[in-house]
């Protein structure tokens, strides 16, 4: 147990005595980032609420720094754990600085007055999350993204050892999403801060997290490093995806493929085809693609969207069988589109040039 900063043993959480997720086993070292992923309503928030003591766990124990979290005093707990939640706060007549300064509460005396030192820490935290210029603005009159960052500043002011965030990036645009997560990552490195959060953005979860906890149904489906979690086909199963596809290795996300006999054959490669594949999907046109090497940039989207893809193994010369299959598809399609610049291409493109010539001969290209 000693080496882990935060861990749970057989933790079962739920509401009103009804267990929602059973036997949660988390092992987290100091300075590590843990992300909870899983479908809506799976209970990610319930787990987070139990960790931050908003909910009594139904059974099992959570340990923080070698002590049971339920046994810590309110004040001791607040100096170790701070939170950023999705609950909307509507404080009346409070400036952003006031809201951030609320994080100093556990460190103040009887009447909650802040010392010079406290204000300095508040100032630092606000600058760290780039809301320094919002100091005197009314908290209710700033954007959701700014609010979220002020709430992070508040949590940082609390000088926690572990910070718990529920879907912190939901209201942020792409710039602030990346910035927000970068701040967390920097703090986890520089201050050895541990982070536990839930995220909907899988590609971000897979990049920032040291550990992932996959919540599904009434249990934790998987717990491990991103490499262990993002195995081919796993995400579709975790989220019970019924439309579209997610490619675990590249994070490539596609809408539902048009499942009909292909009308168009696309000779693509080197990333030149992806945009076209997506346009055809939008137009509801079924297509086939080839011949693509398995390591081609166009491969993930082609596999997800095309009715059929003629593939060749990576780093191999295209074999006659593949060309044969592609020609059959061209025969059955009404039209052929080539997105590659075949004249510029190297000698291994010879077979593709032959294919294009075949299509041109039939008047389809």
């Amino acid at each position: 147990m000693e080496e882990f900063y935060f861990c749970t043993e057989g933790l079962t959480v739920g509401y009103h005595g009804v267990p929602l997720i059973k036997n949660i086993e988390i092992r987290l070292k100091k300075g590590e980032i843990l992300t909870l992923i899983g479908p809506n309503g799976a209970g990610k928030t319930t787990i987070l609420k139990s960790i931050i003591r908003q909910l009594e766990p139904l059974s099992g124990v959570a340990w923080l720094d070698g002590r049971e979290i339920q046994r810590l005093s309110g004040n001791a707990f607040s100096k170790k754990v701070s939170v950023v939640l999705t609950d909307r706060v509507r404080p009346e007549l409070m400036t952003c600085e006031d809201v951030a300064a609320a994080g100093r509460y556990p460190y103040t005396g009887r009447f909650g007055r802040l010392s010079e030192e406290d204000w300095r820490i508040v100032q630092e935290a606000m600058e760290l999350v780039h809301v320094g210029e919002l100091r005197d603005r009314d908290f209710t009159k700033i954007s959701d993204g700014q609010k979220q960052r002020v709430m992070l500043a508040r949590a940082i002011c609390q000088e926690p050892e572990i910070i718990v965030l529920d879907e912190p990036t939901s209201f942020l645009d792409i710039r602030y999403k990346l910035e927000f997560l970068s701040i967390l990552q920097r703090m986890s490195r520089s201050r050895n801060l541990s982070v536990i959060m839930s995220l909907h953005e899988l590609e971000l979860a897979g990049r920032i997290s040291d550990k992932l906890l996959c919540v599904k149904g009434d249990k934790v489906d998987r717990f491990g490093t991103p490499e262990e979690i993002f195995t081919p086909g796993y995400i579709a199963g975790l989220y019970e995806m019924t439309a579209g596809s997610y490619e675990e290795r590249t994070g490539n996300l596609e809408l539902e493929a048009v499942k009909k006999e292909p009308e168009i054959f696309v000779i693509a490669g080197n990333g030149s085809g992806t945009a076209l594949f997506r346009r055809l999907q939008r137009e509801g046109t079924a297509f086939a693609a080839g011949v693509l090497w398995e390591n081609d940039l166009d491969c993930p989207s082609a596999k997800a969207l095309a009715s059929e893809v003629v593939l060749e193994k990576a780093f191999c010369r295209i074999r006659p069988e593949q060309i044969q299959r592609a020609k059959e598809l061209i025969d059955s399609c009404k039209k052929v589109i080539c997105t590659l610049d075949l004249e510029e291409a190297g000698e291994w493109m010879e077979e593709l040039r032959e294919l294009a010539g075949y299509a041109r001969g039939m008047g389809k290209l």
Partner: protein
Amino acid sequence: MKNRRYMLSFFILGMLVLAFLALNLCAGSVPVPLGSVLDILMGREADPVYQDIILKIRFPRTLAAAVLGGGLALSGYLLQTFFHNPIAGPFTLGISSGAKLVVALVMVSALSKSIQVSSLAMIGAAFAGALISMGFVLLMSRAMDNMSMLIVSGVMIGYICSAVTDFIVTFADDSNIVNLHNWSKGSFSGITWENVALMAVVTFVTAFFVFLMSKPISAYQMGEVYARNMGVNIRLFRVLLVFLSSVLSACVTAFAGPVSFVGIAVPHLVKSLFQTTKPLLMIPGCFLGGAVFCLLCDLLARVLLAPTELSISTVTAVFGAPIVIFIMIRRRKERAE
């Protein structure tokens, strides 16, 4: 910069309290010159008629209006904090009316047996009534997460309690009932020095405890979840808040009957004056503001149609109700933004 605003606000409130204390002592069906009032207060020789009016009637009444007004405003402030609702107050939530009902019951049954009810017993009865109403409100607040519905149900509780009180008062057979009738409409009249001493002790002690709670109250303003994360013992905090606000509104009701709108209007005005919601400032601010508000309203109740006296709630409603409407309109606007 901010501190200067706070100091100035306190100065204004303090001055207003003093000014209205003086006005309330001087004005009335028999006007007393300020010089004579000062003479009497200093214990110097003065007209014996004036002396009786000031010392036996106006002075205790004026002090009561100040102390109870402060208590009422503070009680409203606590309830608004508790329910995160700007129009929560002892009157709108039916707490005053609940207190009134139990006090009326106790008084009528005591009068029928010709027992004199002590002030302390009145406070006790009012406190019991306040807690019963508060219990109902809390039960309903669990069933309904919509805050406007909470107020509506509070107002309903208030009406039911008032109806039952009227029923009791109507069918009670005693000459003292005239007094009871006046009281049940809300009035600062007939307050004795003994009353003043007791209400001052109860109100100041309670207000002191409220002031000690200003730190957890400030954490609670960010919402329950964050307050708990700050290490506030939410269950204990809520119990204390309910208890303290009930004591305050019970104390007021026991002596002056139900007084409407002070609990909502004053915290709102004080907030606007200070431009902050920091409890450390709001708690003393509300107390002073409530004192000013009730002194003004009691003054108007006495002098507007002198020698006939208006009930205090009639006057507080005239000033308070527009403020409540204003708050609701502004809230709607903020929501829409």
